[in-house]
């Protein structure tokens, strides 16, 4: 089941489309990595989903509730979000900010639960220090703690890794994986640090110039990005026999003649063996892409 679905969603500012006919699908329980350049429309989509902006065209559903239904307010109570910047009252302490948010969320936490939240993000020792004296990373972490407060079913995180040091990034990454697995929270996360996104995302949405170019699962993407050798042969069955004889285990064969070999092989020797077995080879390609390279290749033509 998809927890979020958009249909031809568009947002137009001064005649220019910031989001242009986006149809995206966020599966329940996934960590959806939102990848796109600055101004590609990632934040605008999050703003539309959270009600901060209204769509110019198209629609979306949250937990199956359409955006123009009155029930959308109740549906939004199941989400939490950090969009653009963490929203905190600077003249209050971390704990006071949590209590303040509890009030308008209609949530009542125990003292220990509040401390537990702060402990998760390593802010339990901040005491009476006001938020205005926090570093950017501390504010970011407090925002995450506050986003976890209402035990949401969906979290929307816009560049949450910004301003965090390497240790902070690693901790937040682990935290997101943990809450996704243990609490079953679906996460929509955008980040410029694709190497980090690669470590946590289970589904990707690639967006450029307001248009969603591709939506892929991590398995699909891995298949596309893994170091592999793709050979297109005339007789797939015969080629498979040779491959098995060679002791190659990790490969996939397709009816169109493509065989993708993921094992580390000596390409020259492999081709030579196929040739010896009179298997006609049409093409041979090697690939070794990261998500970043994959994305860059994807948007090259945009």
């Amino acid at each position: 089941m998809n927890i979020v679905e958009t249909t031809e969603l568009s947002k137009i500012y001064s005649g220019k489309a910031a989001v242009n006919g986006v149809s995206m699908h966020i599966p329940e329980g996934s960590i959806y990595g939102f990848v796109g350049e600055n101004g590609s429309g990632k934040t605008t989509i999050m703003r539309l989903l959270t009600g901060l902006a209204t769509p110019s065209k198209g629609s979306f559903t949250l937990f199956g509730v359409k955006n123009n239904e009155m029930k959308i307010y109740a549906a939004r109570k199941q989400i939490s979000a950090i969009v653009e910047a963490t929203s905190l009252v600077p003249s209050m302490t971390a704990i006071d900010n949590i209590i303040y948010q509890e009030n308008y969320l209609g949530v009542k936490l125990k003292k220990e639960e509040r401390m537990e939240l702060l402990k998760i993000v390593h802010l339990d020792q901040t005491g009476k220090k006001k938020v205005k004296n926090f570093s950017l990373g501390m504010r970011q972490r407090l925002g995450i703690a506050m986003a976890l407060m209402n035990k949401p079913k969906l979290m929307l995180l816009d560049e949450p890794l910004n301003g965090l040091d390497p240790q902070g990034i690693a901790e937040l990454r682990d935290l997101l994986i943990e809450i996704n697995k243990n609490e079953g929270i679906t996460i929509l996360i955008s980040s410029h640090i694709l190497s980090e996104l690669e470590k946590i995302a289970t589904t990707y949405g690639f967006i450029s110039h307001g248009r969603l170019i591709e939506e892929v699962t991590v398995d699909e993407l891995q298949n596309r990005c893994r170091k592999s050798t793709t050979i297109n042969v005339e007789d797939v069955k015969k080629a498979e026999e040779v491959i098995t004889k060679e002791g190659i285990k990790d490969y996939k064969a397709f009816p169109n003649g493509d065989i993708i070999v993921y094992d580390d092989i000596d390409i020259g020797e492999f081709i030579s063996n196929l040739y010896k077995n009179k298997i006609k080879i049409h093409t041979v390609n090697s690939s070794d892409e990261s998500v970043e390279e994959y994305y860059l290749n994807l948007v090259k033509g945009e």
Partner: protein
Amino acid sequence: MFNLTKAFLFKVRKDAASKTALIFAVALAVFFWGLFLLIYSKSEPKICTGQTILALVSTPTQGYGLVLPAIIATMVVGEFSTGVIRNKVIAGNSKFKIFTSLFVLNAIYSIVLYGICMVVGLLLGTIVGGFNPNGIGVVGLMTFMMGTFAGELLGRLVIMGFFIIVMISAFATSLATIFRSVGPCIPIVIISVFLLTILSITMPYSKGGYYLDGLTKFNPAFAGCFVEREPFEGDWYMVMYSNLFISDERFNWSLISSSVYTVIFYVVGLIPFLKRDLK
């Protein structure tokens, strides 16, 4: 709505802006009291009494009414700039509820602050000069002794004051919601309140300006202004004298006009808030 009210009350307790507002309310009452004490300390009969100070701080457009807009506007703009409004929307509150709660709670908060200002003024004045020891009227200092306790006048002044304070709070809330920035908002609202006061004082002075009589009905601050035109037509000479009472007509028009303005400000603030995206 209940959750938003709880959040507002918590913020009032914890936030620096609301603490400053409270300090202003007390400081203003102390200021008026101190000023009167200084000027009229030796006057006989006593002028600096509980009744006088209460009447003084009860005139909303001349006292707290000028401080309040800055406080309310700062608080509302703060809600936008810190992203609290954004959080409230994300938390599943409708924009209608958010604006209405902000509007109503600001009005209530303004009444409370105004009330604190009045109580402090009344107490300080009474401690020094008694509430009404020599029968000095509320505005005896302006012209002459009234000789009696002006209960009805005081009562009407306070009620009108509350209505006007709500109207000023509404004006500040709406402007702050529209501009979402303290910069243009505070000067506009303070100048507007100041103009309201100036108009209420100058209206009766216009030569043969009876056409202004109608306009006075639309100025809620007018009824609380202790000035009336000398009823000699064609004469520039006007006499300032104190009213022993505020007429029913003046009083009613003040309440009606301030209520109508409050509703207008609510609508004027609400519509753009519903239509515009939040940053």
